[in-house]
């Protein structure tokens, strides 16, 4: 039994990340507390390297480990995004962990490991692998969510996430088992042949698909499987929230889409309708409930649900009956584009929340932002920028993302869906702008003046810089990203 070298080369990035994680876990005990940052930088460096490795391999399509893993441009796109997000999360955490007094180097280890899980999810072509990837990612996240052990909220978030996560993965697994019965294998390609052969109304196919949709719907936080999101996002440490809101959501969408298209490509009408329903519900509920939130983290959580709704538009389009290949791939690419852009703006928004501190705590209440523009013009301005972008108002990137999704929707003949999406975009503007309003149009109370400060570590500055750059640049000149997304969408059938 010998390990084919080629396969190892194919999964080189994964190996690098894992290796770094292990090294970190080894070095952690022997590095003095003052030097911990070094470990973070080590991880960051690794990610940079991985970035270039993946970017270099962009374009070709290589299978490894007997078609269990594929590295195609679709996977690469997501991986690049994941590196970026994880890297920024790490940078942000360096300062944040100190402020929150949870300075554990293991944290970075978990980020790396769960990143590994995500990478496996996006490039797995075998349900077994995808499942394991999901588990690796989720278990790390359960732990990270509870990282502020001494805070009841944090642990509660962790517990809720864990219970529901385990529940959903149980459901997912059962679905997989049925599929195995259907196809005699867990490989997506074989599954799709079997499913296509059996057609729409085979009970096993139906039930298994239902279970899979529930499982993935949970991961991407689509209504009605979204309910963990607000609680967990609010309770978890902010950097973890960012990581969950951006990275895990992106990875889950990637895997979800791959499973749907490569596994169930034959029965598109069977699932696109369902996804459409989920999509509509998600849009409506996410936006409506966000209106009444007073805690920014929770508000952003609901907004991330709403954004999942928008992303689902892309999924719907890819599967919508009667759409020819061109339209379908437009759906995929617009989804990828949207999530990429969404990552930047969400990253930015959460970063502001993370660095804004009132007393010893982080300024996560809406009230903590009162009159921010008076004291910290820069922060207020950036927050406004991110809010505008999240609301999808030009000339920020958020608009471009929505624009392409709507294009796809209209192209697929779902004009009404586009209208609905935009109406709720207008609704969302209300709660996003309320933040702006609070920052710019309210007078801060005197004690607030004293209490609030900006824990702006240099690394956090870098994060903000990247986020702003993304939001503005992609808003004004989205061309490159668009073309990348378009080309990366091709490998999917």
């Amino acid at each position: 039994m010998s390990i084919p070298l080629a396969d190892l080369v194919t999964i080189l990035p994964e190996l690098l990340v894992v290796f770094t994680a292990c090294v970190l876990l080894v070095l952690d005990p022997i590095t003095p507390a003052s030097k911990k940052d070094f470990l973070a930088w080590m991880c960051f460096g690794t990610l940079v390297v991985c970035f270039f490795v993946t970017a270099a391999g962009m374009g070709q399509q290589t299978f490894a480990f007997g078609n269990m893993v594929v590295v195609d441009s679709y996977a690469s796109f997501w991986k690049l995004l994941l590196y970026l997000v994880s890297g920024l999360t790490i940078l942000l955490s360096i300062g944040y962990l100190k402020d929150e007094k949870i300075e554990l180097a293991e944290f970075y280890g978990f980020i790396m490991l769960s990143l590994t899980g995500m990478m496996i999810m996006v490039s797995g072509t075998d349900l077994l692998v995808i499942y394991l990837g999901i588990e690796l990612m989720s278990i790390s996240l359960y732990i990270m969510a509870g990282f502020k052990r001494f805070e009841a909220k944090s642990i509660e978030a962790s517990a809720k996430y864990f219970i529901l996560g385990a529940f959903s993965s149980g459901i997912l697994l059962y679905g997989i088992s049925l599929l195995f019965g259907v196809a005699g294998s867990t490989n997506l390609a074989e599954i799709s042949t079997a499913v296509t052969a059996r057609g729409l109304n085979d009970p096993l196919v139906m039930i298994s698909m239902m279970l899979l949709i529930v499982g993935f719907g949970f991961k991407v936080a689509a209504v009605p499987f979204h309910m963990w999101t607000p609680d967990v996002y609010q309770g978890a440490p902010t950097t973890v929230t960012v990581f969950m809101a951006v990275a895990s959501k992106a990875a889950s969408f990637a895997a979800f889409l791959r499973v749907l298209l490569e596994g169930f490509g034959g029965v598109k009408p069977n699932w696109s309708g369902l996804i459409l329903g989920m999509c509509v519900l998600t849009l409506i509920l996410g936006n409506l409930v966000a209106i009444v939130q007073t805690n920014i983290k929770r508000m952003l959580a609901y907004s991330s649900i709403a954004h999942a709704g928008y992303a689902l538009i892309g999924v719907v389009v890819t599967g919508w009956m009667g759409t020819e290949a061109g339209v379908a791939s437009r759906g995929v690419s617009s989804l990828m584009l949207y999530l990429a852009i969404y990552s930047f703006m969400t990253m930015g928004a959460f970063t502001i929340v993370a660095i804004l501190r009132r007393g010893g705590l982080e300024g996560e209440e809406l009230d903590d932002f009162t009159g921010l523009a008076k004291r910290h013009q820069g922060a207020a301005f950036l927050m406004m920028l991110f809010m505008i972008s999240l609301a999808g108002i030009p000339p920020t990137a958020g608009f471009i993302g929505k624009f392409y999704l709507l294009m796809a929707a209209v192209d697929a003949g779902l004009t009404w869906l586009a209208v609905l999406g935009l109406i709720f975009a207008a609704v969302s503007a209300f709660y996003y702008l309320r933040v702006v309003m609070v920052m710019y149009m309210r007078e801060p109370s005197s004690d607030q003046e004293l209490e609030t400060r900006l824990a702006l570590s240099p690394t956090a500055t870098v994060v903000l810089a990247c986020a702003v750059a993304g939001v503005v640049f992609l808003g004004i000149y989205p061309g490159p990203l668009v073309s990348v997304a378009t080309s990366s969408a091709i490998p999917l059938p």
Partner: protein
Amino acid sequence: MLYALIPLLPLFAFIVLGLLGHRIKDRAHLIAVPAVGISFVLSVMACSEVVDGHVLEIPLYTWATSGELTIRLGLYVDQLTAAMLLLVTIVSGLVHVYTIGYMHGDPGYARFFGNIALFTFSMLMLVMSDNFVQLFVFWEAVGLCSYLLIGHWYERPSARAAATKAFLVNRIGDFGFLLGVLLVFVTFGTLQYQPVFADAAAHVGETVDLLGAVGGGWEVSAMTLICLLLFVGAVGKSAQVPLHVWLPDAMEGPTPISALIHAATMVTAGVFMVARLAPLYNLSPVAMDVVAVVGGLTMIVGATIAITQTDIKRIVAYSTLSQLGYMMMACGLGGYVFGIYHLLTHGAFKALLFLGCGSVILAVHHEQDMRHMGGLKDKLPITYWTFIIGSLALAGFPLTAGFFSKDELLLSAWNAGALGQTLTVLGVLTAGMTAFYSFRLVFVTFWGESRVDPHHADDVREPAKVVTVPLLVLAVLSIVTGYIGIPEFLQHAFPGSEGAGHHGPAATGIMIVATLAGLIGIGVAYLFYVKSPDIPDRLMTQWSMLYNLSLNKWYVDEAYDKAIVNPTFKMADYMWKKFDIAIIDNAVNGVARGFAWWGWVARFIQTGETQNYALSMTVGAVVILTAYVVF
């Protein structure tokens, strides 16, 4: 081209005064008077050029083009215009002079001169305009001037109100006028006089669909509609019934204004317009009759009100009203020449009367109620005698200008068929009343013992030369204008309107009757207010109803207030609060509130209990599976 200066000089004066007014202050007249003076001279020259029947046309510039619409501004001087030019420049010039004395020491001295200069400019442009747009532009411009001038003493609430009222009522008239202009364009495709007049005949048969794209197809004759709409403007401007209400109130303005704008020139613009557009009116009998009837009505209404008023200026104002009625009636009956003729003579003697009132008012320290006057004839000889002349002319006393013009006017009316003859009878009646109230005014003001406020009863004396000289000049004019053959001069402007034969039984009959009416009126006035002053009071009590009706101007103002003004404001407030805010705006905010409310409701799905979350997932699963089972 030289004649372009006629209007431009006053404009220049206005601009100078407008910009440097605060510097020039009391020397304002040094700029205004010469300007008007020169334009007077130029007008005389212009007049002499057109006296032999041909006309001057001076194109200025193309104002605007749009689609097939092209509007060229220009000046057009024919006999009608020339006569008006003279009238305007003369009266305006004299008023300028008079003002030097009258407004002496007024804080707004320069502003006042500026405004009358502007008015003179606008009025001249109005009479000289050669197209409808220009006519309309200055039609409103003179209205603006009167607005500014009536409101000259804006500290007085009454003056403010009067100014606004004047402008608004005029606006209502102009609304019709504007529509008329639009209709002219739609019918003729142009707005220049000459082409319109040229092919007016061709469009007689045309009709317009009133409702247009809205459908319904309510057809009326284009020509009639045009004439009537334009006439609405005239009704407003010339204070004809029912839009006459603004003129009396306009007396709140300084007296020179009353003389210039509200007696001699602006208010006659309506008559002028009808005359100017004779070629159109001639083609629409209906419109003509309407004009005539409205004129006649105004004539009688004005007179009936005048006989009971006590404010000297208002008396004169109402007499102006009824005189305008005469003119309008004449035009309506086709006697344009005589309408204009009377317009000119009236311009002279009415200006005279106003300025006379002015000097009286000046003498008795801005007292206008004649019950606080009397016995002034010794103190103010010049004023008194000139005033007498004016009144005689107004009463149509033989050998005054008023006598000739009114006489020929009535004559032409008499010759204009049944309607004409009925109106003539009214005219004679009115003549009688006119004589009565004008001499009532004279007797009460100048005769009898003084009822002047004792404080300054002693220092009542003749005002300065600048005030009296214009009186004398006008007095002369109100005689002379009867003899210089104005009608013949005007004939050229109205081809085919040779005045009815000046001889024959009708002519003499009318002359005698009218004169008699005048004399009777004077006699009655003498009887009432000199011989036995108790008669009026007795009548007053006997016919109190009629008396009050007349005293309160037939309650027209009250009616308007009750029927239109107050409801408008009340309704507006109600609509705003109950409809705009309570319904429309509420609906808008309601949508927003609705979303928020749903959000508030939906948040409670998120109970915070883990197992509820798991349950909702299960529900989701069930729903999906059911969907599959069902479909």
